């Protein structure tokens, strides 16, 4: 699978604007409707914000990558970092809406690590029906509840669960070897 667009930036808050702006190229190139692009932007912004806020604690800085691949009528987006991994954070400054929001916007969400142990949030967006337009009230009501995303790994059966405290997920499979992304969260009812 050839990645159509890959952006690599330092994981800083101000760089999220570059990612958002670059995603507009999808509209230019593939004539996406404005609402679908808005949903994609919002979900990717949330994933990037998680990287900026959580991936590199104690003022550290590292890379943030966004990869977009068009496959038929689906857009696959991966947000990747080389940080500490996804884990519960009781002292999180966030409201815990990040992952539920992503889950409500995307067709599927998968959490895990790639073969180099980099943390990844993989999102798939349907470009045909685009049924998952953001419903703020639903996302708020569902925070920390049914939207828990799940990732599986071949060794150790890692499980990731949405954390109601910070919206990230607890990834217990950090040392379990290369991840494959198996189970996905269907978000059709969000």
């Amino acid at each position, binding site marked *: 699978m050839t990645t159509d667009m890959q952006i690599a930036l330092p994981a800083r808050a101000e760089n999220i604007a570059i990612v958002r702006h670059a995603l507009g190229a999808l509209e*230019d190139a593939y004539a996406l409707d404005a609402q679908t692009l808005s949903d994609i932007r919002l979900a990717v912004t949330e994933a990037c914000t998680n990287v900026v806020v959580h991936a590199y604690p104690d003022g550290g800085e590292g890379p943030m990558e966004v990869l977009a691949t068009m496959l038929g009528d689906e857009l696959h987006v991966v947000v990747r970092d080389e940080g500490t991994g996804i884990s519960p954070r009781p002292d999180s400054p966030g409201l815990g809406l990040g992952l539920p929001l992503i889950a409500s916007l995307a067709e599927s969400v998968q959490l895990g690590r790639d073969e180099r142990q980099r943390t990844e949030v993989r999102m798939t967006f349907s470009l045909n029906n685009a049924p998952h337009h953001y419903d703020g009230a639903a996302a708020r009501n569902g925070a920390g509840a049914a939207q828990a995303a799940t990732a599986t790994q071949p060794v150790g059966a890692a499980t990731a669960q949405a954390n109601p405290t910070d919206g990230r997920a607890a990834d217990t499979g950090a040392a379990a070897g290369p991840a494959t992304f198996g189970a996905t969260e269907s978000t059709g009812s969000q």
Partner: protein
Amino acid sequence: MTEEPPIESSASLRLAKGPLVGPALCRVVSIVLARAHCPMDQIDDAMLVCDALSAHAPDHTLDGQLSFAVSARGGRFELRVGALADASAKRLVAESVLPGVGNVLERMTDELRIEPATAGGAGEELVLGMSF
């Protein structure tokens, strides 16, 4: 009203040959330059450069993928384009001629050089620079 300080930034972009090359490159370059307080007319110049690159560079890739390293800091903009097939960076420059304007890459930039691909990779890179 106080003016925001310029934001110096850099970004790496890797694009598959296809419809995203032009829009993605133009968008990333324009926002990086705008945040660095590059004057509007020079952002326009940079867009012409991006148009020329996206029109011709895909014909010179090694593997169907183009890498762009964009940076704007200290009043200086640099754009590295790679990895281009051997001896094709020169051809890419020669192809970037607009009727009535001349060679866009040479006219719109103040630095233009060809380097071996970074990190010991195959092919070569075209490096373009512009002060603002």
